[in-house]
């Protein structure tokens, strides 16, 4: 894969945007700002997906991450917002020693990963004997050969069709398991986020604990189904 022309320009723009937005996600003082920076990082990475020819994954990324997960994050932030963070009265990072140790670890990890890529990639290139410019020309020719859209200015890729075919042909069992996983996640999060009142009215509290809680809050006795 070798990008060229405008694709290369947009690659650098979106790559830098993704990295800076990621950095600001980690460093922002306000959690809502972190969430918004994470959204821009995810959108930039979706643009990188489009550049590498994975249009379907880019769409899924924007629909699921930005439209679903990040909205959930924003709701939870607003439910549990403590306010001390924005006012500056609370430290946002762990204490000094832990931060230093983890940053040293991260620097070592950066060095290691860059070393691995710098050693491994030239060998991969030598094995596949690809000339970057020839590969770029080949890619442009391949894009030109795609069918034109209705307006004649854009091209239609077969990416989504390939993913659909391969998903059901080679990964149908994992696909079903993933749906069960999502069902379990829905039930689990509903169970976890119930309040004590909801648990009492569903008759789902240990009787001894219930007696202790009723002693603190007599209102709870009225909610219990058995008392009626």
């Amino acid at each position, binding site marked *: 894969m070798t*990008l060229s022309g405008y694709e*290369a320009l947009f690659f650098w723009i979106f790559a830098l945007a993704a*990295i800076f937005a990621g950095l600001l996600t*980690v460093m922002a003082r306000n959690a809502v700002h972190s969430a918004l920076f994470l959204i821009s990082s995810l959108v930039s*990475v979706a643009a*990188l997906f489009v550049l590498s020819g994975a249009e379907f994954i880019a769409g899924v990324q924007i629909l699921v991450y930005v439209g679903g997960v990040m909205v959930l*994050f924003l709701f*939870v932030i607003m439910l549990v917002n403590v306010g001390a963070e924005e006012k500056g009265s609370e430290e946002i990072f762990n204490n000094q020693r832990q931060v230093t140790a983890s940053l040293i670890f991260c620097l070592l990890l950066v060095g290691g990963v860059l070393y691995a890529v710098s050693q491994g990639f030239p060998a991969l290139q030598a094995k596949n004997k690809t000339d970057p410019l020839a590969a770029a020309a080949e890619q442009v020719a391949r894009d030109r050969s795609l069918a034109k859209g209705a307006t004649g200015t854009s091209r239609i890729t077969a990416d989504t069709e390939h993913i659909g075919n391969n998903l059901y042909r080679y990964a149908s069992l994992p696909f079903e398991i993933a749906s069960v996983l999502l069902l379990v996640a829905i039930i*689990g999060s509903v169970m976890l986020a119930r309040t004590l009142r909801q648990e009492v009215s569903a008759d789902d509290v240990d009787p001894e604990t219930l007696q202790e809680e009723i002693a603190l809050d007599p209102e709870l006795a009225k909610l219990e189904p058995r008392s009626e």
Partner: protein
Amino acid sequence: MLNFFIPILAFLFQQEGQGRFTRTWEAAAHPDLSKFLVIGALLFIIGVAGVLTRRNIIVIFMSIELILNAANLNFIAFSRYLQETGNVNAVAGQIFAVFVIVVAAAEAAIGLGIVIALYRNKETIWVDEIDLLKW
């Protein structure tokens, strides 16, 4: 130590060959698989740093999303690379990315449910104050 760093610098700035500037320009004008891998690695490291240093449990969750997204970027880049060079099933990387997104969504739902339950009981979202399991 020098043996470790010189290949990295030579790789990043492409020093060998005809003229340092033209080589660097050539490499920047034609980003290939290695550039995608470097971007993915940097996003991953930023996520790891966020998990290790932040105190707010919600920001830690967001950093985990960043890590999973960096892994997705690598999957997609390799999928595209194999589409051109290998004769293996090149769409496998994209299918794996779909499953990573599914697991990330499930993890976010459960994790945020736990955060809400925790906030109701302990009135805090600072991870250094949540030490029930510490002996």
